[in-house]
């Protein structure tokens, strides 16, 4: 997993609540047995007509936002299906960070496993970043995970919370399974005891 520290990126506004993972990557793309290549299909049904042509109004089809790395969205982002294809598709498109007032649990977890930073902020702060993102024209936000700040184009820094353990995993690019396997002895002991139970 790529290490996550500080970056500046174009922010795309997706001013909708309850963006579900079916919207982020529709089911017809779940037939893949790979993780890569889904960026072409991210937000497919909002982005392309059935004949494959682009829907001009959709934010990622506008020239200002084709290189976006940050997505600013509404409440309850990533609800619905557990498909990890959603963060894979976002990442493959180029997104490294999603900012919203709240996230669905499974999607939120899946982001961290793939080097995407989901940031939950109060609505008023998201509103500011949404209006920054809507400026377009190459407007960037700067994300500093170490300092836990988002810097707006006007220089204002907005602080955000992140679980310290997950923060460290992102910064170091750590592999979760590798970390857990360091606790193998504890797992062995627990399992040996559990395997004695009639209701295991």
């Amino acid at each position: 997993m790529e290490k996550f520290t500080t970056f500046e990126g174009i922010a795309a506004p997706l001013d909708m609540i309850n963006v579900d993972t079916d919207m982020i990557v529709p089911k017809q793309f779940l037939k893949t047995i790979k993780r890569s290549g889904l960026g072409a299909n991210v937000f497919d049904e909002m982005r392309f007509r059935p004949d494959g042509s682009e829907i001009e109004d959709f934010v990622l089809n506008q020239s200002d936002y084709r290189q976006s790395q940050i997505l600013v969205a509404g409440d309850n982002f990533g609800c619905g299906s557990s498909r990890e294809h959603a963060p894979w598709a976002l990442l493959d498109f180029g997104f490294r960070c999603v900012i919203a007032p709240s996230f669905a649990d499974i999607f939120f977890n899946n982001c961290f496993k793939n080097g995407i930073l989901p940031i939950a902020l109060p609505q008023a702060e998201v509103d500011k970043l949404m209006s920054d993102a809507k400026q377009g024209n190459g407007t960037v936000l700067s994300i500093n995970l170490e300092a836990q700040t988002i810097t707006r184009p006007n220089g204002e820094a907005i602080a955000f919370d992140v679980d310290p353990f997950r923060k460290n995993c992102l910064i170091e690019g750590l592999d979760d399974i590798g970390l857990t396997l360091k606790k193998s002895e504890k797992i062995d002991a627990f399992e040996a005891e559990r395997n004695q139970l009639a209701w295991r």
Partner: protein
Amino acid sequence: MSHTTLYDKIWQAHLVDEQDDGNCLLYIDRHLIHEVTSPQAFEGLRMSGRQVRVPSKTLAVADHNIPTTNRAGGVEAIEDEQSRIQIETLEKNCAEFGIDHIGMMDLRQGIVHVTGPEEGFTMPGLTIVCGDSHTSTHGAFGALAHGIGTSEVEHVLATQTLAQRKAKNFRVNVVGDAPDYITAKDIALAVIGEIGTAGGTGYVLEYAGPAIEALTMEGRMTLCNMSIEAGARAGLIAPDEKTFEYLKDRPRAPKGADWEAAVAYWQTLRSDSDAVFDREITIDAANLPPLVTWGTSPQDVISINGRVPDPAAIDNEARRKATERALAYMGLEADMPVQSIEIDRVFIGSCTNSRIEDLRAAAKVIEGKKVSDRVNAMVVPGSGLVKKQAEEEGLDKVFLDAGFEWRDPGCSMCLAMNADKLSPQERCASTSNRNFEGRQGREGRTHLVSPAMAAAAAIRGHFVDIRDF
């Protein structure tokens, strides 16, 4: 322990490690896998040279994009090449890593959340995960069960544990005597309508109260299944005699003295009378009307006697915009009566409502009647065993005589990965769990209802109040 909830107890019993920062390692007793969210996990194991830690604690069955017609030729005859590759990949991965796999031609094959309980793989007090958000279904047995992503599938395969932080406790009390026409589906929709699709985020829901105790195991599975639609990863119901009755003599349930010991333990699995919940709500099942969704979020719930909302009456801007978008997508006018909405398709199936009780309820409504000329209706049983039982009871004849299609088991049009899908603008009365944009097919329009309400809509060609039917 006292003052503890059912969730607290199961959590505590599976805690392998707890870091000072609150990050925990939870032991996983049962892992269900299917063809769509597992291939990349096995690939990850191969790339890092890791093994499956305890193959016997994982069970595989393909369901998401398996065909529901023309199966006689077996997997190699599946027309859609990508679907076939995915199903073959699951078979190969299971063979390579020594995991028990229920194949497409096996009578037990079905939707993973129907098959797991039927096999007795699901039991009270266990931790159960699957790379599918509707894993919450298994909470009906008093198991802590939730959906995970593919990276976590790989983590569970490699370590038999999951890194977790403890959720908060939320009790949903459902009181009152539910009338016959109020099903677990209506209760689920009422809960989601009440707390919203994010209302359960960060919580485990425990459903309790007389109306929950009165539910069958099938009903409890329907209710827990939709916990994720309220944002909760898991829903729980304390096990009782109905739970034990359901599990007794299931293939993988304990036998003999082990069974007795297990039941004795399972009887301890309930929240203490003085348990503390972070949040509680109460719903009166006696006063619920049959419910329908009008929009593109499961929280868009209204009474069958209600009217589609008017965005102009909504103050909150984000809500108003979402409502306008949903009405446009659904092709509905503000303020129109729900019963005037005409439908084109009916889907009875999915991990929410495809069990024998669901099929009986639908069959009872349509017996001796014909599906409306404007409607194409289908039934997709949840598993081969459900299908067989329904056929033994003659339900297939009832459906076929009425003009329904009678399919082979799978997820089918709940998520439309296989050939079963809506065409643009087609409107469907569906017993599934999600009415998201595009969920049942691009530009398809989904209304979530109970099996009886879907069946009645199939006959009349529009939504009807099951109480008047």
